[in-house]
């Protein structure tokens, strides 16, 4: 449809200008600021992805990705993070309808799945280091541990944040400021899942299939 025609069809009183409506509510300002932070965080990950893509062939005679990566572990990690993103969404629905039990349950499942992801990743890292594939072995492994480790660090920080948020819900209830922070947490958790989609595709699947 022609855009000009589509704009003409919108009744003007439904779209007041921002100056007419006054300053935006705090929930929108807080979430938008956090959205900007998340985008800058994703740009940082883009730099790590770029350095990984450049260094992936620089194995210095050491092990390659195809020799190191276990796809079963990666598949389980992916399912853990994906389902935890879903339960995080269910948790934010419970928060919006102010149900304590469902909020705690959603947070508990989200935390358990995130912790399962992290423990699998730590086990993978330690088994790689045990066979001599440590970050100092080659440029490829340095880039690998930086990229995947930075994502794992974000997941660990998210888990700590989730505990702090549940304590705040228990102490303050569903106060407006607690709800703003919970909205930021769910944005953070979903963004981590988006980064993980890039990680498992670029690092693990492309590393094994090429």
């Amino acid at each position, binding site marked *: 449809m022609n855009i000009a025609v589509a704009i003409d069809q*919108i009744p003007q009183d439904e*779209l*007041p200008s*921002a100056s*007419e*409506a006054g300053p*935006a*509510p705090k*929930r*929108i300002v*807080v*979430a*938008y600021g*956090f*959205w*900007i932070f998340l*985008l*800058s965080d*994703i*740009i940082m990950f*883009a*730099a790590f*992805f*770029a*350095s990984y*893509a*450049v260094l992936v062939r620089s194995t210095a005679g050491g092990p390659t990705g195809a020799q190191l990566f276990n*796809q079963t572990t990666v*598949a389980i990690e*992916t*399912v853990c993070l*994906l*389902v935890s*993103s*879903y339960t995080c*969404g*269910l948790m*934010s*629905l419970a928060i919006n309808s102010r149900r304590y039990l469902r909020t705690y349950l959603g947070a508990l499942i989200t935390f358990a799945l995130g912790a399962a992801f992290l423990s699998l990743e730590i086990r993978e890292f330690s088994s790689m280091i045990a066979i001599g594939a440590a970050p100092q072995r080659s440029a490829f492994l340095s880039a690998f541990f930086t990229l995947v480790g930075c994502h794992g660090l974000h997941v660990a920080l998210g888990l700590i944040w989730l505990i702090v948020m549940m304590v705040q819900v228990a102490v303050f209830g569903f106060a407006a400021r607690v709800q703003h922070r919970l*909205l930021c947490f*769910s*944005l953070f958790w*979903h*963004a981590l*899942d*988006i980064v993980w*989609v*890039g990680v*498992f*595709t*670029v690092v693990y*699947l*492309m590393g*094994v*299939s*090429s």
Partner: protein
Amino acid sequence: MTDARHERAPGDRPSREMHASAPSELLVYTIGLFVAVLLTATSFWAANTTLLWPGGVLLGLAVLAIAQMGIHLVFFLHITSGPESTNNVLALAFGVLIVFVVIAGTMWIVADMSTNMMMPSGAPMSMQH
């Protein structure tokens, strides 16, 4: 309803007051999970199968990953093309532009440099000091 006069916060769903026909939020998340699982399973299958032409697998994996990121943005982060989500979409578009410049630019420049660094064997190393 004052919220309807403003942009929507990123991650917030469209308000039911504005869109009476909006599907239930639980259904949105469940559809998102279903499609994401489908795309992930396809990615893992494509990386391991021998049925596909190997040269096309990398491109296919990239397309599947970008599609899944889009699914996450729409169904989990509730980014829409509606007028109340313009600021969020514009910020996202700028972020995607920078991500593209950083990744594609780095790979282009470094590939170009490594091509130039390759000396033909036997040629005089006049460029080296």
